[in-house]
């Protein structure tokens, strides 16, 4: 469903992504992990072209999102991929409900009443129906991130991308966000998650990609990865994590 084909990206002299070849299959949950600066976030941001690439293709359902295209086409492709940010990025001038309704109305052209019904259902699904009228500033970090997930789901994307969705949260709020992600995975959503939550990776992921220095060094099922990672860099990463 999402494929990377010989993807390269440079920041000036620095090679952020080098020769990435990988695939996320439909219904699969892929967790991308690795040390900071390894290119995880850059990689996930190339999928909806928040980052440009130097060469290669990133295709979604066979369509190369980095091909030359009109901005209208790009907007349409982007609206089909949900993206959840580390810093939530809710719109602070809109209530939780309005945050979720905004894009269906103005991007997808859904009627207001219909958008409202759907938004309420989505807020209910992430456990925040009671907070529909609250503004982001009145919500906890965990609640904000759940609204952000509902906002992304409102466009009914066939795939969801998560860029360190729990890294900005206080520890006691991580669980509620992961629970929402788990239920999405259980519903068969195609997901690509950059995360440091190794328990989530172990329990939910179908595959784990380990990245370092802009390369995917290892791609294996989580069982094998956590029991015995193949690459020495991955072994070191895991033992560093365990030592905490």
């Amino acid at each position, binding site marked *: 469903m999402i494929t990377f084909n010989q993807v390269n990206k440079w920041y000036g002299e620095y090679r952020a992504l080098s020769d990435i070849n990988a695939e996320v299959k439909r219904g699969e949950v892929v967790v991308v992990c690795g040390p900071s600066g390894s290119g995880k976030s850059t990689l996930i941001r190339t999928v*909806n072209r*928040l980052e440009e690439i130097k060469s290669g293709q990133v295709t979604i359902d066979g369509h190369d999102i980095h091909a030359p295209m009109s*901005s*209208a086409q790009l*907007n*349409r492709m*982007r*609206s*089909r*991929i949900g*993206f959840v*940010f580390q*810093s939530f*990025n*809710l*719109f*602070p*001038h809109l209530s939780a409900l309005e945050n979720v309704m*905004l*894009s269906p109305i*103005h*991007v*997808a052209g859904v009627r207001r009443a219909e958008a409202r019904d759907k938004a309420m259902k989505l807020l209910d699904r992430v456990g925040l129906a009671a907070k529909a009228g609250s*503004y982001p*500033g*009145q*919500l*906890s*970090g965990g609640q904000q991130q759940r609204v*952000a997930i509902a*906002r*992304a789901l409102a*466009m009914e994307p066939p795939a969801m991308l998560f860029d360190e969705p729990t890294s900005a949260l206080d520890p006691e709020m991580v669980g509620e966000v992961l629970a929402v992600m788990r239920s999405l995975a259980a519903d068969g959503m195609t997901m690509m998650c950059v995360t440091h939550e190794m328990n989530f990776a172990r329990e939910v992921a179908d595959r784990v990609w380990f990245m370092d220095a802009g390369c995917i060094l290892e791609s294996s099922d989580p069982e094998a990865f956590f029991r015995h990672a193949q690459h020495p860099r991955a072994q070191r990463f895991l033992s560093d994590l365990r030592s905490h």
Partner: protein
Amino acid sequence: MGSVIDIVRDNWLLLLIGQYPNGPLGGIACTLILSVLGIVLAFPLSVLLALARISPWRWLSWPATALIYVARGVPLLMLILWVYFLVPLLIGHNVSGFVTMLVTLVLYEGAYLAEVVRAGIEALPKGQMEASRALGHSYLGAMRRVILPQALFNMLPSMLSQFVSTIKETTLGYVINVPELTFAANQINNRLLTQPFQVFFILAVIYFVVCWTLTWAATQLERRIEAKRAGTAAGRAAGRAPVATPTLAAEP
């Protein structure tokens, strides 16, 4: 002091509305109308200029930047004289001092406000635009529905203080015979001949009262916006500090 009161008693109508209805509307009324129209018309211009200036297209950003630099880099009086002599040449007939002054103020304030708008837009976290684009909004759609509503709200106090500057700048209309407040005061002074200190003292007091009131309103507005933001920050700490909210809400 007695003479000050006498001058006010004899000339209050002239100071308030100029020679209206026997002549053009003048005095404070003219000053305020000029300022309000100036800022109201400058506002949409400033948003357009700011959007052009930060746009990724050079053919749009360069002319906007140039216009802003010129308008900000030239004394207002020069701009007034340019418009005074150029506009009749361009449109083929004379225009009133009022219109000349209005056109100048719109250009001048538009340029200054454009920089305020730009700062307001650029002060927002980058994630706001990214999140909108990731949801499929176009650049302009995101500007209109996500970026500008936040930026303009944050800018309200700056815009109000720009309005105060505008009021003070209308005094320069005096040089092209706009019958605003300074012009009216000068008429009084010419008639009385012997009491310039008293006349211009009254003038200063009027300007001060008008501008101070508005500056005070701007400060109040700023405080309310800050309180609102602080309330947001307190709210973010969730159950931890619910006490903060009533305290802030109790503030006038």
